[in-house]
């Protein structure tokens, strides 16, 4: 055994990268769980191609998983990595530009053979492992394939099966490097392969081999410790955005006492919500994989009419198909939650890459005057809070509510100091009561102080009534072509949304002073990057603050006042300028757009540079 020195680090960024069949997402997820259990704060960024098995060995087929963890507050998956695990040359080529100078490269030699070089378009006379081009980095070359095969030589498994265990070697080694607990992965493997003991044992053996490799070879002079983060006291778990959204919907179902109906059609990156919800039928969760996007939302509208907590979920292209039905739900004035896990568009776009370009679609993407409530989650765990809130507002105001998330926070993970069921508010819901012949005629569009109408579900005596997409006469709900009534109804539906501002929290400053030279106004999944950028700018003496919108329609009531306290307002977005248009339109201020449209999240330093450029 060699002597290694333990070094203490405040934070580390590791990027696992390999072919899309190399199991990098699984490796990253396992490392995340172990790191969370160790008590670090963390943020992750899975970055993978749309193809399940993209062409082997090519640059297009590289799948990456980045994790940033530390003993301090971690807001983003990190701009640049300290460690790059490259399972092949394509993974190295794609990711080397974001490795810090002096950073560690763990390269799987087998992935740098002539075939891989050719597939990754490396000229024949070059080999990054030997030609000195990586001299600025700390290069560790390991023949992972060879060692894995040797470890499993007598396992009786085929070479193909054995090679699938390679990722466990790397995981074991990195666990050793960073003193991570290995038990949770052992347990995971035991559960995952409980029906195939040979594969279970093989994976465990290779995981240990990776750990032991670090322990026994002289390749690594240092091991690193990253102390648990000083986070707010409490019980934590690791959570991903889509998982949190699913739990938020279930929690709303429990707290409202209504069974949940989720009508949907598989689409990246929203499908995991369906997968998660489908597991919890014992919670009265009813999932429905429809024949298409339109049927998904329409079945949900049917369920809403029948008195269920109805939700539909998709991503941009699917939301486009649902547009007409969202208009119907708006006319019917029934509660409906529409989940949009945004991805880069238009059309099919970049299905596995993130973007925030569906805000205008949520806001205006229907025929006629069709306002709905819009909420946008800012982090993986916030998906829980806002999915719950979306249900609450839909049920209490009898109105469709958009819940916006994006591919970045949907698949990203972070520690979550989760609430207990008792901490969550109840969502009282009451259906219109039965009537007798002597009672006055039921008026389906009679409104309460929130301007919402009664929820009169079929099967209730005396409430027989007809609703539909044709314009309704206010109060009676009868079809009406009356000119003044139509204008009244358009105004009422708008006012109903506007009134929601009385039921949502006021906007706050997330970091920085209440006034200053510049306000960074963000929304959605850019929260972490903007928060980090703001703290850097403040540390450098800039009078900059950050405020992050989670309620976009209606805006919080105090937003105008909040904005007025700053000389300049900058709106960074992963689109071509959408929130900024609404802000300019609504508040008549010369807000400055800052846009990135690359299917990738903001890096904090990009934001810092941009703000400095504006201020200096």
């Amino acid at each position: 055994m060699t002597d290694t020195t333990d070094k203490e680090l405040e934070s580390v960024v590791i990027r696992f990268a390999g072919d899309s069949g190399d199991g990098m997402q699984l490796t990253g997820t396992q490392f995340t769980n172990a790191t969370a259990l160790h008590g670090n704060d963390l943020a992750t960024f899975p970055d993978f191609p749309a193809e399940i098995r993209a062409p082997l060995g090519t640059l297009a087929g590289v799948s990456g998983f980045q994790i940033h963890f530390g003993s301090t507050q971690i807001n983003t998956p990190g701009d640049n990595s300290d460690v790059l695990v490259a399972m092949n040359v394509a993974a190295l080529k794609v990711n080397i530009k974001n490795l810090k100078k002096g950073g560690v490269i763990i390269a799987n030699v087998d992935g740098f053979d002539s075939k891989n070089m050719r597939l990754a378009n490396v000229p024949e006379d070059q080999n990054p492992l030997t030609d000195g081009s990586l001299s600025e980095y700390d290069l560790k070359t390991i023949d992972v394939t060879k060692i894995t095969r040797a470890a499993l030589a007598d396992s009786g498994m085929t070479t193909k099966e054995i090679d699938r265990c390679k990722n466990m070697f790397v995981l074991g080694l990195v666990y050793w490097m960073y003193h991570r607990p290995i038990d949770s992965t052992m347990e995971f493997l035991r559960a995952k392969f409980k029906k195939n003991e040979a594969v279970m044992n093989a994976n465990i053996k290779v995981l240990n081999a990776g750990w032991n490799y670090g322990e026994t070879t002289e390749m690594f002079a240092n091991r690193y410790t990253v102390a648990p983060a000083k986070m707010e006291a409490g019980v934590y778990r690791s959570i991903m955005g889509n998982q949190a959204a699913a739990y938020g919907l279930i929690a709303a179902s429990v707290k409202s006492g209504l069974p949940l109906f989720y009508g949907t059609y598989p689409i990246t990156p929203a499908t995991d919500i369906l997968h998660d919800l489908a597991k919890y039928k014992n919670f009265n969760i009813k999932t429905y994989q429809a024949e298409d996007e339109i049927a998904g939302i329409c079945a949900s509208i049917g369920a809403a009419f029948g008195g269920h907590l109805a939700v539909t979920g998709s991503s941009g292209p699917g939301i486009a198909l649902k547009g007409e039905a969202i208009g119907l739900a708006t006319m019917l004035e029934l509660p409906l939650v529409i989940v949009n896990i945004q991805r880069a568009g238009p059309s099919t776009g970049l299905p596995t890459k993130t973007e925030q370009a569906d805000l205008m679609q949520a806001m205006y993407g229907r025929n006629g005057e069709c306002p709905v409530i819009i909420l946008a989650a800012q982090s993986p765990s916030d998906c829980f809070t806002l999915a719950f809130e979306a249900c609450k507002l839909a049920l209490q105001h009898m109105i469709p509510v958009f819940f916006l998330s994006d591919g970045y926070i949907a698949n990203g993970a972070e520690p979550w100091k989760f609430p207990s069921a008792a901490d969550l508010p109840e969502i009282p819901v009451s259906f219109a009561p039965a009537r007798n012949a002597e009672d006055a005629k039921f008026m389906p569009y009679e409104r309460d102080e929130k301007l919402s109408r009664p929820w009169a579900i079929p099967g209730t005596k005396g409430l027989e009534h007809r609703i539909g997409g044709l314009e309704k006469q206010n109060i009676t709900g009868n079809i009406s072509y009356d000119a003044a009534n139509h204008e009244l109804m358009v105004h009422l539906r708008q006012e109903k949304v506007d009134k929601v501002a009385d039921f949502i929290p006021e906007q706050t400053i997330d970091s920085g002073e209440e006034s200053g030279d510049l306000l960074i106004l963000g929304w959605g999944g850019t929260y972490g990057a903007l928060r980090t950028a703001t703290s850097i700018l403040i540390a450098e003496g800039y009078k900059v603050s950050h405020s992050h919108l989670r309620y976009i329609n209606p805006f919080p009531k105090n937003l105008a006042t909040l904005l007025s306290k700053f000389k300049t307002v900058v709106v960074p977005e992963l689109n071509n300028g959408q929130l900024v248009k609404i802000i300019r339109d609504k508040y008549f201020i010369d807000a400055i757009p800052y846009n990135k449209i690359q299917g990738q999240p903001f890096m904090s330093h990009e934001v810092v540079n941009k703000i400095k450029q504006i201020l200096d």
Partner: protein
Amino acid sequence: MAEVIEKLTSKDFASDQEVRWCPGCGDYSILKQVQTVMPDLGRPKEEFVFISGIGCSSRFPYYMDTFGMHSIHGRANAIATGLKATRPDLSVWVISGDGDSMSIGGNHFIHMFRRNPDLNLLVFNNQIYGLTKGQYSPTSEKGKVTKSTPMGSIDYPFNPIALSLGADATFVARSMDRDPKHLQAMIRRAYDHKGTSMVEIYQNCNVFNDAAFEIFTEKSSKKEQVLMMEHGKPLVFGENNDKGIKLDGFKPVIVEVNESNINDLWIHDETDLVKATILSRFYDDPSTEGHFPRPFGVFYVNNNKATFDELFNEQIAYAKEKQGAGDLDKLISGKETWVVN
């Protein structure tokens, strides 16, 4: 004293809304027959829900004093499936037309049959787009001259019965607006069937496609052109039921009925899918020589396929029984947590 249960009347099912179909429209008869059958079903009004899409027929729910939804074009089947899945206690009816069901809503039409929720679909087939003022529909005959096809349509029509059978519908029937008794009987049969019931109703659009079904509805031609199917009875038609259908292997043939062949006639069996499929293809242009009469009645019934709403809710019940009611705290905390002090 015996308890007096007041029986509802057809009037109880009429809403206070003025019916706005064109005078002479076949929809009036269908509305009347539905309202006539409803009281016999012995259920309180509030348990009925009528859901429609868009088109002339889709105004229907407004005229029924039950729960109703006039939704968007082609989507009634999808909405109804969601409602029935979550509220199996309700009697759900879908009112649709040929365009609504087989053009814009074609996908939901076939997928509903595949799933088999226990609801009833009445397709008012007038072989024309009426609400948009006269364009050819997916059931219009090839060569149809309309405003959108001045040189005649080049599309071949759908055969709604064959399409439904092909999508594994469990109840498939055809009726017509001009035969109230038959229509009432079919509506009743549809209600009694557990599973999705599809009733195609030939409905005359007297404004844009008048007399499209005249040959099947007029006294002068009806007997020769209509084949009334009755379960367990031979397939006969003609002026004095003097013609019959015989199966020669899988090939149907028309025979003059006489004493020597009366026992060889095809006996209608609603439960036989192969035979129903053959009958569904009796879809010839009535003007062609040697054509088969058009069948009316129940083509096919399958009582052995579990309904979607049953299966959907059984899974929920089974999960609750197996795993117990959900524990929200356990769900949120997951298996792996850590404590920060």
